[in-house]
């Protein structure tokens, strides 16, 4: 079976390269408003573990179609000879710079490529297209016309009528906004051109679907890790004996926010890399709610323990010692020993803590005042971060590689407000657990990643 080969042909500047870039998910394809940017045929094969499933050929646009058609029409021969006449043209003009574009674009078609003829459906049909379409008809190769909607106006009806006279299949496709499903549908439509290519294209779509799923899974994991780190992030500054000044608090707060913003930005960049958007310029407002629920607290620590923890440890030690006495009297003290021991231990820890904190070992005090900020207590914070991350993911997942404009993320839709109670409950539980722990538990991150992946599927359903 031959590998399905598709030559993307058409007038210059009608989005041929955009379609190739979208389907090949290759942001290196040169897309320019200047006609003739594509100077030679470029092959974009879909190769899976060494097996080529199909290939796209981006071709230069027609430049002198009328002259070419006139040359062909002047050649003797009947309708059945037309394909040979086209071949003759290419052979004769192979080195003729005047017809370099036409020779290039016709070569893969003569080699058996299916024709994907691309027009701009947002602009009216013009008589200058007729020569191009006639030449393609002469090749006798199976073909499909794609109406690429580049602008806002809609002339697709007009184009449908014109293209219908030359092409059996006519489809509308917006290379800039096509999401994964639409791209997959288009690939499957290519199978309509030639029956024997269908299996290969179906396999390609299935593999791309699996790849898409993997990308979602990896993105969900990255988002879960980021949110977990953002929720549990704390920052401290040792003060010694001094009281925290407002400058100390401001500085710590700024450092804290900067770190959270940096975590979020890193997450964005990682997700974009997963989808092969390596040079994406992004505009996104900073995460809100950073101002709320953020207060730098002055705490006291000894051996790294807060006063509360220290008292708890002292009380437990005292209780254990008192318990020995209870045990000694065979329980006749009605656990009075443990109770008194706990009290004595706790009070001793409270009373002596400051003095111990002043002791210096190798010049460093054992304890003292500490200014700390975080973890973020605002209960809406993880939801806001998650919503933003899901929105960004969705935009990146659907973003065509033909898009060269910056990614603008200004209006985040409130997907999370619409999720059902079960999802919300599971999310809330995970967030609460994440906030509660001293350190991150990988199981919680796993659980969050799983939940996020489900939300990604839901958000796809919401918008499609």
């Amino acid at each position, binding site marked *: 079976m031959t590998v399905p080969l598709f030559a993307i042909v058409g007038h210059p500047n009608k989005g041929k390269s955009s379609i190739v870039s979208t389907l090949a998910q*290759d942001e290196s394809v040169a897309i320019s*408003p200047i006609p*003739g940017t594509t100077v030679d045929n470029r092959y974009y094969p879909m190769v899976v573990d060494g097996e080529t499933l199909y290939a796209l050929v981006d071709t230069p646009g*027609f430049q002198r179609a009328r002259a070419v058609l006139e040359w062909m029409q002047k050649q003797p021969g009947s309708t059945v000879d037309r394909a040979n006449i086209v071949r003759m043209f290419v052979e004769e003009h192979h080195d003729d710079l005047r017809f370099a574009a036409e020779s290039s674009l016709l070569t893969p078609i003569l080699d058996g490529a299916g024709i994907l003829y691309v027009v701009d459906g947002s602009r009216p049909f013009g008589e200058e297209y007729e020569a191009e379409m006639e030449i393609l008809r002469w090749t006798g190769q199976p073909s499909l016309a794609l109406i690429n909607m580049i602008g806002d106006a809609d002339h697709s009806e007009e184009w449908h009528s014109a293209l219908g006279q030359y092409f059996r299949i006519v489809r509308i496709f917006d290379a800039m906004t096509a999401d994964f499903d639409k791209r997959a549908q288009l690939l499957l439509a290519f199978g309509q051109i030639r029956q024997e290519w269908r299996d290969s294209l179906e396999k390609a779509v299935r593999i791309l679907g699996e790849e898409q799923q993997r990308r979602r899974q990896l993105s969900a994991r990255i988002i879960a890790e980021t949110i977990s780190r953002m929720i549990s992030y704390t920052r401290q500054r040792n003060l010694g004996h001094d009281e925290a000044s407002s400058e100390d608090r401001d500085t710590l707060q700024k450092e804290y926010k900067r770190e959270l913003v940096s975590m979020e930005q890193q997450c964005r960049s990682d997700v974009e890399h997963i989808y092969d958007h390596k040079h994406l310029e992004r505009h996104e407002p900073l995460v809100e709610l950073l101002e709320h629920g953020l207060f730098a607290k002055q705490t006291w620590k000894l051996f790294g*323990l807060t006063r509360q923890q220290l008292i708890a440890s002292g009380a437990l030690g005292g209780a254990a010692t008192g318990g020995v006495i209870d045990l000694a009297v065979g329980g006749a003290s009605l656990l009075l020993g443990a109770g008194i021991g706990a009290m004595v231990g706790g009070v001793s820890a409270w009373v002596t803590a400051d003095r111990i904190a002043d002791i210096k070992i190798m010049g460093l005090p054992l304890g003292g005042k500490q200014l700390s900020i975080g973890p973020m207590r605002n209960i809406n914070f993880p939801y806001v971060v998650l919503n933003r991350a899901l929105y960004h993911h969705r935009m990146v997942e659907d973003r065509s590689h033909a898009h060269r404009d910056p990614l603008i993320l200004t209006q985040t839709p409130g997907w999370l407000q619409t999720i059902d109670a079960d999802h919300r409950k599971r999310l809330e539980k995970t967030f609460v657990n994440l906030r509660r722990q001293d350190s991150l538990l*990988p199981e919680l991150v796993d659980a969050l990643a799983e939940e996020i992946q489900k939300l990604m599927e839901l958000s796809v359903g919401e918008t499609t």
Partner: protein
Amino acid sequence: MTHSSLIGDLIDLNSALKIDGATDAEERKQRDRAIGQALQQRRHSPPNQLRSWLGRVRISDWQRQGHHAVQLYHTLCVILLFTGLVTGWGLARAVLHYTGNTPINIVNALGLLVLPQILLLLFWLLAAIPYRIPLFNALQSALRFLNPGRLARHLSRLFPLHSRQSLSVVWETEYAAALAPVTRWLFSFWSQLFALCFNIGVLLAAFYTISFSDLAFAWSTTLNIDTTTFHRMLSVLSWPWHALFPDAVPGPELVEISRYYRLDDGSLGNGAATAELAAQLGQWWPFLVTAIVCYGLLPRTLTLLISWSRFRHHLVHALPRLKGSPELLARMNSPLISTSAPRPETALKLDEESGHEVSASARYGLRCAVIDWAGTGADRERTEKQMQSMGISPQELLAAGGNRTTDQDNETITSLCHSKTDGIAVIVKSWEPPLLEFVDFVHAIRERCTRQQPIIVLLWGDQDGVSKQDIETWQLTLHQLKDPDLHIEALGPVR
């Protein structure tokens, strides 16, 4: 697969993934897929697959540092082992110190060698519970923080930087999402290793003292505890082994004769320290040793094993959770898909300096022949008005391009050459880019008409007006002709 080699692999994998980020994405995909295909049989065991990947991958600028971490880990283990033995030995020798004057107080020995162990064991259990118990939250945090195993982390500061830095990955907060349980169980393992060695030290010292000197035990306390109560307490304490080692359970007689008061010059019973009494008082040692074994050595062996096993378990499970591991596994186990062109595209470079300025208010003051290129469909009356406003007075209307033949175009050029007008205005669709056949047409005019007339290309933009981008496209393309008398103007509003 030892856990020390796992530590080494964890450190190596982490550093490899970090450095590998700089490798070209396409190169990584191909390399990892090739390794993944060779490791297909390990596909269902991600940790094993990752470890095998380490053995096969070659990354420039990456040096395996794991062995430094393993060395440091082993050194710290040895230090803790030695410190445990020494402190256990020292404490036991101090507790069992007997000069022959005052017998060794069994209450003291139990208080220092057995009871703290029970207490610390309870602490360990409380800290080992993975989830927080309400009301005990602060205590659990404190106990985890006070874990003596953490001291080993501080000890690591005494070692060379490369070793210290490599092992510190295990406890740095940056990696907490993947390694928090590893850190916790590593500290637990170290603390239990110390505790086990401490008990071994205690027992060795006890056996040494018992073997090479005669010891006399007794019990003494200020508390109002009679011999029956004390015996009951000892019976409770020795309940775990009373069936197995009945000789190691002190009987009521032994308890009775072993009580002493320092007020009474440390004398026992009737005050006569006979050889028989000395032998009887020496019978306490099996009880003391069994208590240390039962409440120290055995539980610590168990906690050490638990800590070791949990540490190892979490080490294995941390490998696929390291930053970059899920992506690496995906690269290894999913088909290598390539949809892009094998070589980067070399786009045509145009001279971008445009010599044509569009001026809506341009006044040409020319009588022009007007050519409608490729059937623009522009409204004649309106375009004429717009041309008039630019100082272009249309004289005759001709057509070229589109579905006309090139011969017809040539005829148009012939009439142009013969016309008496001052210039040529060509109306084109602004949204259609200038093709080479249009450039040919302009060239042909210049070649065939001896008179150099200004050519004004008028961009017509339908109802939407002319976009700036279209103007730029036309300017850039026609600029390549380097024709000083070629002008480009927008016919109608520019958007």
